[in-house]
Structures are given as C-alpha cells and as structure tokens.
C-alpha cells in the first residue's frame, strides 16, 4: 500500500460510513471435549502430567 494512505484523510466522515454490526446475540455453549479420567488412570495421568487431566467444558 502507498505510504500516503496513513496520513491522508480522504474520506468525508469516517463515522458515517463505518456502520456497526447488528446486535443479535446467540449463545455458543462450550463443548465437552475432554473426558475426565477416572480411578487408576486419573492417578497415573495426574502423576505423569500434572494439571492436564481436568475435564473442561
């Protein structure tokens, strides 16, 4: 891009032209992706990689 673009205000009124997005919220629930390990497996994984066995979601 031409460097002059940075310094030149070539637009009439920027705020008149840059319109906002419609306000229409939609829920996007977090998905369950990690299965919480149980029993011996949980202990083993917790021992090998501490802090990585927690189930999220």
């Amino acid at each position, binding site marked *: *891009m*031409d460097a*002059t*673009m*940075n310094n*030149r*205000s*070539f*637009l009439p009124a*920027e705020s008149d*032209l*840059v*319109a*906002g*997005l*419609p*306000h*229409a*919220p*939609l*829920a*996007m*629930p*977090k*998905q*369950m*992706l*990690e*299965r919480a390990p149980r029993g011996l497996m949980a202990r083993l994984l917790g021992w090998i*990689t501490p*802090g*990585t*066995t*927690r*189930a*999220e*979601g």
Partner: protein
Amino acid sequence: MSNRGSANNSAQTGGVETFVSRGLVLVASVVAAVSAGLVFYSYGTADGPDHVDVIRALLMTISTWWLAWGAAQGLLGLTSRPKPPALRQNGPIRGRTAILVPVYNEDPQITFARIAAMDASLAATGEAGVFHFAVLSDTRNDTIAQQERQWFAHLVKARNGTDRMFYRRRIANTGKKAGNIEEFITSAGAAYDYAIILDADSLMEGATIVEMIRRMEGDPKLGLLQSLPKVVRASSRFGRAMQFSASFYSPIFARGLAMMQGATGPFWGHNAAVRVRAFAESCGLPELSGPPPFGGHILSHDYVEAALLARAGWRVRVDDDLEGSYEEGPENIIDHAKRDRRWCQGNLQHARLVAAPGLKAWSRFVFVQGIFAYIAPVFWLAFILASIAAPYFAPGPDYFPDPFWPFPVFPPDATSKAVGLAVGIFGLLLLPKLLIVLDAASAKRVGGFGGTLRAASSTFAELLLSSITAPIFLMFQTRSVSQVLMRRDGGWPANNRGDGSLTIADAWAASWWITATGSTGLLLTWQLAPALLTWMLPVALPMVAAPAIIAWSSRPQQGSLFEVPSDGNPPNVLQLHDAYLADWSRFVAEGRATERTLVNA
C-alpha cells in the same frame, strides 16, 4: 421450499458407498504397507536377521502405509465424477447470510478489493439483497488498523454498502480466528441463518456463494458445506507448481476424500458455508486443560468444529463439484514451511481430542490422519538413520552354516528385492498422478492446462520438483514436530520481498542446518555404510543443496509450464478484483478523492 430430487446420494449423506470406499482404501493401503514391510524384512535379513532389521521393517511398513493411503485415495477419486447433490433449493433464497472476512494484519487495500469484487459478483446473481459482509479484524498493528478503517470506508462508498457491510476490530484477539468467529456469532449471529467463512486471501464467485446457500437451504440437516478452493495468482516456480497441483490433482484426491467421508466431511477453515444455529449450538470451543502446545486454545479449530457438528448430528460435506472458489498459496518453501509449522502444532494438539466423548469414529480417524501427516516424515527419517546404522548390528557372514558341508554357502543376492521395493514405493507416488493425466486427457479436462502434452510435461516437472523438495520438507516437518514436543518457538528469520522471491542469503539463513544435516548424513553413510551411498544420494543431495533449491524455486516462473485454466481465462471474480485494485491504486496515486465506483463492473 422446492427441492430438486427426493433423495441424497449415499456419498453425500454417508451410506453404503461411503462404507465401501473407506473399506477399499483401508484394505488396499494396509496390504501395500504389509507387503512392503515383508519384502523389506526379507531383503534386510538376507545376511541374517537382527533387531535393527525388525525395526527397519516396521518403520518401512508404517511409512509405506501413509504413502499408500494417499495413493489409494487418489485412485478412488478416479472411479467417479463430481456430481451435484440431490437436495437443493430452487426458489428465491429466504435466509440471510453473513459473509465473514477475518483479517489479521493483512494489506487492507488488497483484502477489501476482494470484498468489492465478491460483492460485484454477487450483485450479478440478483440475490445480493440477502447477503451482508462483515470484516472481523483481529489486527494487532494500530497503523494497519487505521488503514483498515479508511479502506473499509472506501469499500462501502465504492459498493454502496451502507447497512450491509460491517467492520469491527477486537481489542484482544482471544482464541485467534476461532475466537474471532465466535465473537461474531455471540454478538450478531442471531441476525443470520448462514455464514460464509472466508480467509483474508479468499475469493469466491457470487454464483458459487449463492449455490452453496441454495444447497444449505435445500438440506435442513446440512450443518457445513465446504468448497474446494483452487490456488490462484501464483508466480514463482514453487508457487506455480503448487497451483498446478491444486488445480490438476486436487479435484481427484478431493473426490476420493468426499467418497470416503460421506456426511462426516471436512472443514478447512475457509471458503465454506455454515448454518449459524448449528455452528453456535455445536462449536463453542473450550480451552484445553494444561499449558500449550497440547493445552490452551485449540489452534487447528476447523477439524474440531467439523467433528463437533457431526457429533451433534449435522451433516458436514465437501461438494467437489463446486467451482468458483479460490485462495492464494505460499510462493516459496520458507513461507510454506512457516504455515506448516502452525498446522503441525495444531494437528499434534488433536492428540488430546482423539478420545473426546461422542465423536464419530471417522472424526477420530481424521484426527489421527492429521497427526500422521506430520509424524510420517519422522518415520522416514528414522528409517534412513536405522539403515545407516544397520551394518553395525548385522551378524558377520557365515559361509559354512552346515558343519557337514565342505563348500561355502554365499548369502542370496537380495538386490532384486530392494529394487522391486523401490519401484513399488515410487509407483505409489507416481501412479495416481500419471493416471490423473490419462483421466484428464480422456475427460477432455486438459484444455485449460495447455493440452495433453503440456499437462503431461507439467506433471513430470511437478513430480521432479516435489521429489527434490521432499527431503527439505522432511527436515522442516521433523523440526516442527521436535519443536512442538519440546515446546520451542520456530524462530524464523524475516525474509521475503513482496513477490515471495528469496535471495540465497535468505534461504541460507533458514536452511543452513538442513545442508549441515545432509552433509553429515552423506559423510556418515560413506564411512559406516558405503553400500548405501547410492541410495542415500536422492535424499542427501537435495538437503545439501537446500538453500540453492529454496532460492531458485522462489524466483518467477517463465514459460508455459504449470499452465492452469485461470491463466488463459481468469475467473470473473479475479478480473473484478484486478479492476478494483487498479482503480484503488490509481486513486491513491492521484492523491485525490474520486467518485468513481465499479458498481457496474
């Protein structure tokens, strides 16, 4: 809603054809891999068996499986032709669609000229009224952000886009592109039925966008529809070869993929249509527990979103009959390797998700396949290293194995097995591409590629170039995997000029370690296993010459090799983009405001 036809074909919904396709490719690739492993074991143990022979045979089996899997997919793709789906809305489009353009420090003039081109192309369809554009900026550079606002205002003016073209910039780019899309959906998603998700370098014909939405409207269970983007605007030797490959081979490989995936298809992150409600319900991505690279935000979100949509019962499909979908690709090996480094980390992170609850079996397999794409080169490298070391572990020759036989017994000559194996492996690489040439000639698809002879020449040149660059990519991928596992950053040197061309110094800075590794490998082979030297040369020589190959392949391609249909007959939307760019550049050069628009372009 008026639908054409009453039933989907099985390849698009998942059914017998999908099941048979998967089975055929799996069986064929496993048979090829096991055969290669057995032949190699027989060759390796000709001088007596040892542990290294077993390891090498296993590595050969795994590596061959990956090659055979790709080859079988290509062969499968040759067995049928793309066909439109049975379900499609024929009447006026009723739903509203947001065309999302996530940007991140891109050149706004070029990016927004693409939007102007797509909008003009949409206007020509007569359906533009139900489409909005939303530029979702995650740009971190304030100067570029200022330019984005200016160019956006210019775009709105040029296309009369008030109230249908929107721009917003996030203060924090949490979750990167996936977070950017999610922020749009949670703040404005309810206003739209569908979204077309693009990349900053995406271009799609208006007719293609409309057709994709018609297909979404015609099939209420379709959650995501992926198009097959073709690479355009490549100019370097490497870029042109990639562009030819994406134009000439990819449709066939994508056909094979579509046949196998059925309704559990892919999402490649852009040039796709999604049903907003389905996406919102199913694709909220959590942060993974633990630190990066395996924890934290999900990097390669597209594969995961496709898997989550399928888990929720939505159909995810790639329609390989759709034309008019384009993207740009890297112009040199370094840019390709940089992108690959990001994808490598994202794909390896999927190891955390293979066992995610409720996923379809094919989705799990896709994760494994994505991981394998990056670790397969590590297996090849391990095989090469084990072969160099093998003579040290081989038992000494025993010319008199039978104490009651007075004459020496010489070990059988296993050269023919080695040659046969090499021919077989090269066959896996060459056969699908050679058959694609024949198929293209018989289907009269070669016209846009300069005719049969030129398409065959381009194929031969592409095979040659990909063979030369394969050892270089093997090293880059091996380093990427190592860096991810060791949680280290890539540390790429700043390099390319605007056109992607690299100097020898740039290439040397990025690949001197490949030269050093290749030279060391050659030296070790000469010292430890001189009999292997001939076999090592095709791998080691390109490594030694890596800087020269990288710099040479980044230079502009002259001549008609790697011709593609878009060279002689540029798609309408590309011509529109060129026209807008030229007009906007004149506008900047002239240094004055202009009333000129290309509404009727």
